[in-house]
């Protein structure tokens, strides 16, 4: 379809001021927070489900690919188009439509920031459990697309465990509801399929989430160790004692030093590992549990322990962890956040592999990880303007994922596959597995227009249409 006509038709749907088609505008919609780039042909800001549906129907009529986009903060290339087409920007659909305390649900539009929902719920004594580190900029629509995690997953699960239903614009433009406020909708779990589908089988235009009562009491403990192994062993011991803390986060020395340089959280710069533990629930017995945890840390040679006395101190202890990625970003112009998950007890092995890869490719790598659920985030530092370094970075990333797969883990804990990890999918799935996934895609999007080129690699022999560009 001729571009000018496409622009006119989109303008007729969303209004003239809501369609971007000049080169300068399109140039800032070719990226997200990953290293992948893909230029769209046009960007349309939608404000209603009806508009999204009409845009998708137009795309179907003309055979034009489309990609739904929130804040574009995903780390795997999920919102950058592989074959041009229309970006359907949902950021202006930003209302919290309903909060229903009795039924323990909230209904939101996809452009609502995760943190905005938390802030609306907190005064009512409730919260929404999945709290990814990106929560102040990632939208709930994006959280659904990527099945975002966060530091509280060990105890509370990920986004998928907290989405009850969604209004979905299917790849052919029709609107349906998956799930709803009545739990256990009969049949296969379509909501479970939608969450984490990275925008490839439909666009969520309303999302119904489960909300929970804020825990009565929270205890936050910071422990400093002289080695990652001891910190990891402390984590294993805590769990072996039958406790499931809400959070278990670890940062290594490179990250600690970066954090001290920027946020100054009070970590000793020569410490090898910082472990943050959080317990939540009823106050009764929590102090005893906290003491037990401190004992366990000490028996694993913890250098020092700090327990937060109040919410201000709690914020202080967390400040370092929340600023970790950013602090690391100061060290080199670019960084690649890897995202693998291994069974928790295999973390020390995984970290040894990361170190080996770092030395092999001559790239500094810092580690932040959700020690409780084995999700590690090696941060590979480099200068993105140097193509040779970029190549080494991609190779290093792949080798890390290979090690992760070998240790019985998976290649993406929370950031998704997008375009970035298409080839690594074969590390953990057989061709038969992948074919079943391809058939899901083909069944729901036979024309392959709904965020094409993501999530599932094409069969061997078929060229990938995707090239990672920086």
């Amino acid at each position: 379809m001729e571009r000018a006509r496409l622009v006119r038709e989109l303008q007729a749907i969303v209004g003239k001021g809501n369609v971007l088609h000049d080169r300068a505008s399109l140039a800032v919609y070719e990226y997200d927070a990953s290293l992948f780039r893909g230029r769209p042909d046009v960007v349309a800001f939608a404000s209603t489900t009806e508009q999204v549906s009409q845009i998708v129907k137009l795309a179907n009529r003309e055979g034009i690919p489309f990609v739904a986009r929130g804040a574009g903060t995903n780390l795997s290339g999920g919102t950058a188009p592989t074959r041009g087409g229309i970006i359907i920007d949902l950021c202006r659909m930003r209302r919290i439509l309903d909060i229903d305390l009795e039924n323990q649900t909230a209904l939101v539009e996809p452009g609502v920031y995760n943190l905005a929902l938390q802030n609306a719920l907190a005064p009512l004594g409730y919260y929404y459990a999945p709290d990814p580190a990106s929560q102040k900029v990632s939208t709930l629509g994006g959280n659904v697309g990527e099945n975002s995690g966060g530091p509280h997953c060990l105890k509370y699960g990920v986004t998928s465990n907290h989405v009850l239903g969604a209004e979905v614009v299917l790849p052919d433009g029709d609107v349906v509801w998956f799930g709803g406020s009545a739990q256990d909708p009969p049949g296969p779990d379509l909501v479970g399929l939608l969450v984490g589908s990275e925008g490839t089988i439909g666009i969520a235009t309303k999302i119904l989430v489960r909300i929970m009562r804020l825990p009565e009491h929270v205890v936050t403990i910071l422990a400093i160790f002289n080695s990652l192994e001891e910190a990891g062993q402390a984590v294993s011991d805590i769990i072996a004692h039958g406790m499931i803390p809400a959070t278990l986060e670890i940062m290594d020395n490179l990250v600690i030093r970066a954090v001290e340089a920027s946020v100054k959280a009070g970590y000793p710069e020569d410490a090898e590992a910082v472990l943050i533990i959080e317990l939540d629930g009823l106050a009764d017995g929590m102090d005893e549990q906290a003491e037990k945890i401190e004992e366990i840390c000490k028996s694993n040679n913890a250098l020092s322990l700090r327990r937060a006395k109040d919410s201000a101190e709690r914020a202080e202890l967390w400040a370092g962890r929340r600023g970790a990625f950013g602090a690391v970003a100061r060290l080199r112009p670019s960084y690649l956040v890897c995202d693998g998950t291994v069974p928790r007890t295999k973390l020390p092995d995984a970290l040894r592999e990361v170190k080996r890869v770092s030395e092999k490719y001559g790239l500094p790598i810092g580690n932040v990880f959700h020690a409780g659920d084995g999700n590690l985030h090696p941060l590979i530092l480099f200068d993105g303007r140097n193509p040779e370094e970029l190549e080494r970075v991609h190779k290093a990333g792949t080798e890390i994922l290979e090690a992760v797969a070998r240790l019985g883990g998976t290649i993406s804990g929370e950031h998704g596959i997008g375009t970035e990890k298409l080839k690594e999918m074969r590390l953990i799935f057989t061709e038969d597995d992948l074919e079943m996934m391809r058939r899901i895609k083909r069944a729901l999007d036979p024309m392959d227009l709904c965020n094409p080129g993501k999530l599932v690699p094409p069969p061997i022999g078929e060229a990938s249409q995707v090239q990672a560009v920086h």
Partner: protein
Amino acid sequence: MRSAEEILKEAGIPARRVEVPGSQEEVASLVALARKDRMRILPLGGGTSIGLAPVPEEGVDLVLDMRGLNTIRELDPGNLNMVVDAGKTIEEINRELAQVGRGFMLPLDPPRCHEVTLGGCYAANSSGPLRHLYGTMRDLALGVKGVNSEGKEVGFGGVTVKNVSGYDLTKFLIGSAGSLAIVTSVALRILPIPDASAMCEISFQRGSDLQGFLRELRGSVLLPSALVVTWKTGDEALKVVIGLEGHPKAVERQGREILDMANRHGGEGQKIEGREAMERGLRNSVDPKRLTSQTMGLKVGVAIAKGLELMLSIEDLAAKGQVEASFSLLAGNGIGFVYATDSSTSVLEEMAKKVREIASEKGGHVVPLFGPRQILLSWGPRMDARLGRKTLKPIKQLWDPEGLLLPLGL
């Protein structure tokens, strides 16, 4: 435990052949064989939710009794997960887990869990009282392995809690009731058995009092593991069974506060200590009291706030039709079980029809778990038909083009 033949006979399902595979490979080769002869396949567990699968009137060609696959394949208490064959019963899994180390549990307690197999529980999305705190299969399943309609062995997910690699087929297949793949093993989260357990049993004379109590309890910071309201036609009072687990101090405090709360709302109750008592109490609260060939089991789902009112309306229906029935409401989830027994199948059918009407009016849904064959045959769509046609039908067409597995139920 009933044999496959008994289950099939009771459910009135004609079957030409019954096999008992002992491994995933066997399942795969049987399916491949079935494919050659275009045989329709029914995977069978304990048959407790056989009503979910829309078995055609002419029956099936090949029944795979999955209970031959019944080992724990991997057990990793340090990492809080395990991989179990689909044919093991939930009760047996828990019995074995309790003996491991400090004692572990799989917090799944669907009705009739001594008969429910893991695979059946997964395929039917069955759950019980403990879902109040621990969630359902979608919160506990980490990965799944199975055989597709072509006889190929496939696997999705893994053993880690965090996993967003590819489409989440571990979740998608939950509730698929044998229509999309045959599940051979599931990777699951396990948890350490809590230090202390107890149970509160409380009676309420009036529904309105009970409603007030439930509202207050649900809106509080207390964290019971289970919250079940149970009664049967003819009962004077509604009984509430509440499971409590955790640190001894927390259990003690919750027991105290809950009984106080109940008193304030006109209820009367007591607390009983001990894990065994709690487990028994919870099981009794959801198992059918009577189970005959003329017993119909229904599962209803509605928004949490409407749960009690829906179940009470269903009781009215039963009373009007003079049907003997028992009711269990998982009051924190809006999920209810209705077990109705009557010598007349058409009376039961009529009741089922009305239950579906009032559930629908309240925005809820009803599915048949088991019952007289006639009711199951004439049930019609077991899910939202329009939704199913748009989304599940195309997937089914590509995954099972020859229609060897059970139909979707649209």
